[in-house]
């Protein structure tokens, strides 16, 4: 057993670190570092830099443009990107629909969609949830009726992340109402520019605009956009869930946030002394750091199993639960650290477009909105209650 990375892996780490330092646009780095809101173009500029380097899709097979890394290299890459304040990769194309197409798609679909995902030419969004189908996803209703060489699609998806940017949406749709609910579900790729598709923004309570409702009214979708077989959509979605959990722990990003927390605590005062010297507050920071170490080493054990050829099991739900709990805890501590200066609402300073100085310290404006916004993390991607149900059933056998 060995906790350290070998020489090659360390050299690789250095290479990634240098790349991030050189190629990540300074303004994007600044936004990520300070928790400011990212625009479409911010994601794209970084994604294109990765694409040029051949690093856009760490998890993909080489034949489709993957870099051919070991799981450890993939892990190091993720870490270095996070520690260097690169934006998180938007998962919908690269980590979600991409692997599904690679595994289950037709040759024509691979040829048509994969290169455009790799190069970020197409922005994808995920159309699973519906007003009546959240945790109970299999009860979804949006219907796709086969009519000759196309499907007629009707219904609505909701909570769709960044649908306002999207060129394409991958949807779970109902192609049959008989039999088991799961067996009537199919996986369909839909062009967002199709007539009959409308997007309505949903504002979140932090003031952000990242989720949407997407309505489909008699939308004609070419039958060739069906992935795999009709009625097998649920199987594909479950395959995808495994991919979704990879990297979900976000250990390195949380480490960066803890560093930021420490910096802010050193700059803030309590009873005339730096807040960082306050035993109570220090204990809180240390606790979250220790929790983070526990998570990191759990993740490393899963990684080691993966390197030995074992596919990650339902244990990886633990990564999602603990990862999001820790992220949320850090956002709370950041709000606590700034005291009253969490109160001013200064949306202009969340976008980095403002010319004058904010009220209070420069690090303050994003803290409360980020705490509010991050409550989402224990809801999306399968709520933490649902993750616990999975562990109780699949791991503990209860």
């Amino acid at each position, binding site marked *: 057993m060995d906790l350290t990375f070998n020489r090659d892996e360390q050299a690789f780490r250095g290479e990634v670190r240098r790349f991030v330092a050189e190629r990540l646009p300074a303004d994007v780095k600044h936004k990520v570092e300070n928790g400011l809101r990212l625009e479409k173009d911010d994601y794209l500029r970084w994604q294109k830099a990765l694409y040029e380097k051949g690093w856009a899709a760490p998890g993909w097979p080489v034949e489709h443009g993957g870099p051919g890394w070991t799981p450890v290299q993939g892990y190091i890459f993720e870490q270095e990107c996070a520690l260097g304040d690169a934006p998180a990769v938007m998962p919908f194309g690269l980590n979600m629909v991409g692997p599904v197409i690679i595994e289950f798609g037709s040759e024509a679909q691979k040829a048509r969609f994969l290169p455009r995902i790799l190069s970020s030419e197409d922005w994808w969004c995920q159309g699973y949830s519906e007003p009546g189908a959240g945790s109970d996803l299999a009860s979804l209703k949006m219907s796709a009726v086969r009519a000759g060489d196309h499907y007629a699609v009707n219904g609505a998806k909701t909570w769709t992340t960044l649908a306002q940017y999207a060129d394409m949406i991958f949807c779970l749709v109902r192609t049959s109402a008989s039999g088991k609910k799961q067996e009537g579900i199919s996986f369909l790729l839909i062009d967002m520019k199709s007539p009959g598709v409308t997007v309505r923004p949903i504002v979140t*309570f932090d003031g952000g605009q990242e989720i949407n409702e997407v309505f489909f009214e008699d939308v004609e979708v070419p039958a060739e956009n069906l992935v795999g077989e009709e009625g097998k959509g649920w199987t594909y979605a479950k395959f995808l869930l495994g991919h979704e959990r990879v990297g979900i722990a976000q250990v390195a990003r949380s480490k960066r946030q803890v560093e930021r927390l420490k910096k802010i605590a050193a700059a803030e005062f309590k009873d005339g002394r730096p807040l960082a010297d306050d035993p109570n507050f220090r204990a809180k920071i240390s606790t979250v750091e220790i929790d983070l170490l526990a998570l990191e080493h759990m993740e490393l054990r899963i990684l080691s199993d993966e390197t030995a050829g074992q596919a990650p099991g339902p244990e990886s739900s633990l990564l999602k639960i603990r990862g999001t709990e820790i992220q949320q805890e850090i956002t709370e501590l950041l709000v606590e650290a700034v005291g009253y200066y969490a109160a001013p609402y200064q949306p202009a300073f969340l976008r980095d477009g403002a010319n004058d100085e904010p009220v209070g310290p420069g690090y303050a404006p994003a803290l*409360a909105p980020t705490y509010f916004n991050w409550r989402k993390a224990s809801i999306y991607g399968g709520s933490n209650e649902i993750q616990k149900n999975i562990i109780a059933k699949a791991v503990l056998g209860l």
Partner: protein
Amino acid sequence: MDLSYTNEQNLIRDSVQRFARDSYPFDARRRLGETSEGFSRGTWKTFAELGWLGVALPEAYGGSGGSAVDVMILMEAFGRALVVEPYFTAAVLGGTALLLGGSEAQKRSLLPRLAAGELLPTLAFAEPQSRFDLGDVQTTARQDGAGFVIDGAKSVVFHAVSADIVIVPARTSGERRDEHGISLFLVEGDAAGLTRRDYPTVDGHRASELKFENVRVGGDALLGARDAALPLIETVVDHGTSAVCAEAVGIMAALYEATLEHLKTREQFGQPIGRFQVLQHRMVDIFAMCEQARSMALMAALTVGGPDPTARRKAVSAAKNYIGRAGRFVSQQAVQLHGAMGMTDELIIGHYFKRLTMIDTLFGNADHHLERFGRL
């Protein structure tokens, strides 16, 4: 012992609950957020007419002679309705400071106007470096003839944009964190040399950064004893803390009810989600915290006006600590159990969440009051 309301208190409760239910719709509040003052002067007038602004003031000064319990009743309903009118700054902080610190002449000239809704005071209790330490005062007031000249800065002064009078702690002697040497001054909102930077707060209220440059006030602007205002400020802030504890209780009760209703009506997996035992237990925890928070707010309200300062401090800090912790749990779980719906700006849930978060910070967060309680 008797923990039931008097007849008068029942009347107040009925009228404020009716007001919150019928006359303060959430979308109207939302529209107020776009105005420069952030609240409705018409509603303020109504508060005056209903006797709420002077509820805890003696009749001799235009009030109705009530107590902190009456304030609690009002604040709880204001919490539920997410009232943005500056009640806790003007009526509670301003009213208490003037009543407890004012000379007979100051009380006679100012309190009846406050009760009538014609005078809006606010208290500038924080400075950029002070965090929650009320005695950390750098702003200075230098004697100049019969009057004083004030220089310095105050941060996050609630509703200063609307204030006719800013009550300003300033140092007349001593060093930055000395307990002795702080005095309170009444400064006109439009005094020469006083500049404001106004902004909305994340929970839909209004606050300002204030700068004092050579602000001249007369000798009659002094409120209370020179150099010895800190105990008065602490008492006033304890009254404010007791009031926002009650506001938090109103919010938590509303979150509890909305979440319970959601658990009964939202169906997933062919049944109301309230059938899932883990959510049942979570809901019971929420319920237990709401009940205890209410008990703590009542304890604080019954103690804050009493003669024993140690008892007052202990009760207020205990309540604020408990309510800070409970508020965090209840607000987080209310969002969680609503699922993605809970994340929307459209639902009131997130707005309650934001206000509870800010109430935790206001007058010192849970940790601050834990330490204060422990020191007593």
